[in-house]
């Protein structure tokens, strides 16, 4: 038997191996008895009791989710509670019981009408059918007295498989015993994915129907980095996956063995991830992506909603910095209220700061207003950076917008604070004019994923050129070195917020290159912090110089492996 790989979307850069337990909420019902054999009054009472039990369950799960995941995730249960009390649905169920159906069958029938009604309403309403299905399945399970797997007491080494997991399901998982989970549905921003990241469980979502073919008790590897579920893994694959990390989480700031402080920060893309960042010991937020505020909705968030969001992030790091990146979208991430033409080559087209200074100028101004206001309220120190900058002119225009907004707020008598202002270093152009950019800004942050893509002219998405798209290629390393030099010559700090920053094998090299801050997925923070304290900056500089002299990636690798 050889191993079989199913592909999905990896959500945590962790792997785990374990035994499959299926989480299956579907309950098989027997054929209903003849209507005359049904005790209508007794069935009505059973239905009422089931509703009461469901309400208690939902309230408990709501509290647990609010505590462990976040208030905004918990709000989904308020909608469930409201549908549970919905007279239109309960009337339909009670009618079906009166016609002679047992309570569980009547529940299926009564909810079916509601589901069809919502589906027919289309658009946003159709999405709520999932809520109705959830409540229906809950009631049927209670009525059928079906066993539900206790997710908080899974045997050690379980890999949980499910079609999908709700926030309350994931909130029950214990990272000490659960080796990982995989779901057929869901994306990187699904509740389950966010939760997995925040507590550090290996997870793959969106595997599709292939996942349903995996049997209970099979051994699988969940590779959250590659996004793979590997069934019947070879001994080698298994061993690689089970190298459990045994690293201490430390929330204090770290410095190298010879006393250079390195800020180790987290990249986050939703508010829910802030908690995970704190839990993994992040000193700061080095990249706060704001796209989540704008995606999956019909109208842009207004200024007040944005202020609240940024203040929440700042309050999570009272002693630290929160670097917010302004809206970074392009033709590849469609948003209903943003007009973006389809482009042949979206990564070289209208995206990032180019949109903010062009078609999205109004959104940009609102976002800057919200940021300046939030900076005056939130506890932490706000920094704001612009994505995909290629020219000094773009920076000057963006800074003009910030000045104008500050002037408006001043004359309106609204409290605001000027944040640190910086840019992402993602284009070779920004590297080459780094000295001129540094004169105008407070900091740089290198986005290595895009920088590698643009330096190497190799798409991140195309597997045929994946080998070229490597941030440790000497060409990319030299670009990084040049950006660091420009920053330090201009007396500003420079960080890195690409995936490269979170690779523990590269910590020494990055310190040697002179980075002041490293920002990464929260789960890799403990490993990187543990490595920082062992680094001597002199040795690190020697390593960096060797790597910078390298002609090929292999020579870079050789230099790295000599060190360790």
């Amino acid at each position: 038997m050889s191993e079989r790989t199913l592909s999905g979307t990896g959500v945590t850069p962790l792997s785990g191996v374990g035994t499959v337990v299926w989480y299956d909420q579907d309950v098989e019902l027997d054929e209903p008895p003849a209507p005359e054999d049904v005790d209508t009054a007794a069935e009505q009472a059973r239905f009422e009791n089931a509703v009461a039990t469901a309400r208690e369950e939902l309230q408990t799960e709501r509290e647990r989710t609010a505590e462990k995941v976040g208030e905004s995730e918990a709000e989904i249960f308020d909608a469930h509670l409201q549908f549970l009390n919905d007279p239109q649905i309960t009337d339909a169920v009670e009618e079906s019981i009166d016609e002679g159906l047992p309570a569980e069958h009547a529940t299926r029938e009564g909810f079916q009408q509601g589901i069809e009604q919502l589906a027919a309403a289309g658009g946003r309403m159709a999405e709520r059918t999932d809520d109705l299905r959830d409540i229906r399945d809950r009631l049927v399970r209670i009525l059928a007295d079906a066993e539900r797997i206790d997710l908080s007491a899974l045997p050690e080494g379980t890999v949980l498989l499910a079609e999908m997991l709700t926030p309350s399901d994931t909130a029950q998982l214990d990272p000490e015993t659960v080796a990982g989970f995989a779901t057929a549905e869901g994306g990187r921003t699904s509740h389950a994915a966010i939760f997995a990241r925040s507590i550090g469980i290996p997870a793959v979502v969106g595997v599709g129907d292939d996942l349903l073919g995996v049997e209970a008790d099979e051994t699988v590897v969940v590779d959250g980095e590659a996004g793979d579920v590997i069934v019947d893994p070879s001994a080698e694959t298994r061993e690689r996956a089970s190298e459990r990390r045994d690293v201490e989480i430390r929330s204090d700031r770290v410095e190298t063995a010879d006393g250079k402080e390195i800020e180790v920060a987290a990249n986050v893309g939703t508010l829910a991830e802030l908690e995970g960042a704190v839990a993994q010991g992040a000193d700061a937020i080095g990249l706060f992506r704001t796209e989540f505020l704008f995606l999956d909705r019909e109208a842009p968030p207004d200024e007040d909603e944005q202020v609240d969001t940024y203040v929440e992030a700042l309050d999570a790091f009272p002693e630290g910095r929160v670097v917010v990146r302004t809206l970074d979208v392009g033709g590849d991430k469609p948003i209903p209220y943003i007009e973006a033409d389809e482009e042949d080559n979206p990564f070289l087209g209208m995206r990032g700061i180019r949109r903010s200074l062009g078609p999205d100028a109004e959104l940009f101004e609102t976002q800057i207003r919200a940021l300046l206001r939030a900076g005056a309220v939130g506890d932490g120190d706000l920094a704001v950076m612009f994505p995909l900058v290629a020219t000094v002119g773009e920076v000057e225009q963006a800074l003009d917008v910030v000045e104008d907004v500050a002037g408006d707020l001043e004359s309106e008598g609204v409290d605001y604070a000027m944040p640190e202002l910086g840019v992402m270093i993602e284009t070779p152009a920004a590297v080459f004019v780094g000295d001129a950019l540094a004169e105008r800004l407070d900091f740089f942050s290198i986005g290595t994923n895009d920088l590698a893509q643009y330096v190497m002219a190799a798409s991140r998405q195309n597997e045929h050129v994946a080998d070229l798209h490597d941030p440790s290629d000497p060409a990319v390393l030299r670009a990084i070195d040049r950006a660091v030099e420009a920053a330090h010559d201009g007396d500003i700090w420079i960080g890195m917020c690409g995936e490269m920053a979170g690779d523990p094998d590269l910590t020494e090299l990055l310190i040697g290159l002179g980075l002041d801050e490293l920002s990464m997925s929260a789960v890799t923070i403990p490993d990187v912090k543990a490595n920082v304290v062992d680094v001597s900056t002199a040795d690190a500089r020697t390593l960096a110089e060797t790597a910078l002299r390298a002609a090929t990636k292999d020579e870079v690798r050789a230099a790295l492996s000599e060190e360790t």
Partner: protein
Amino acid sequence: MMERTVTIVPEAGLHARPASKFVETANQFEAELQIATEDEEPVNARSMLGVSSLGVEHGEEVRLIADGDDAEAALDALEKVLTTPESEYDE
């Protein structure tokens, strides 16, 4: 039986938070409460399903129908929900 015609103020229309607030408010009264649009049959104002499937958007008119002792107070409260912008909701 009392009736009142109201124009929807929240930007989101009668969906999501405004809908949920509306149903919540209806549940605080004893009177029989219904909501109707021009083209649709009146639905129970306490039904999230009924209210949301009306698909009422910002700027549209709806008819509120109340029958019971506290009908007037209920209409006042429901009207307030429908005419308050979402940004002014108390948390």
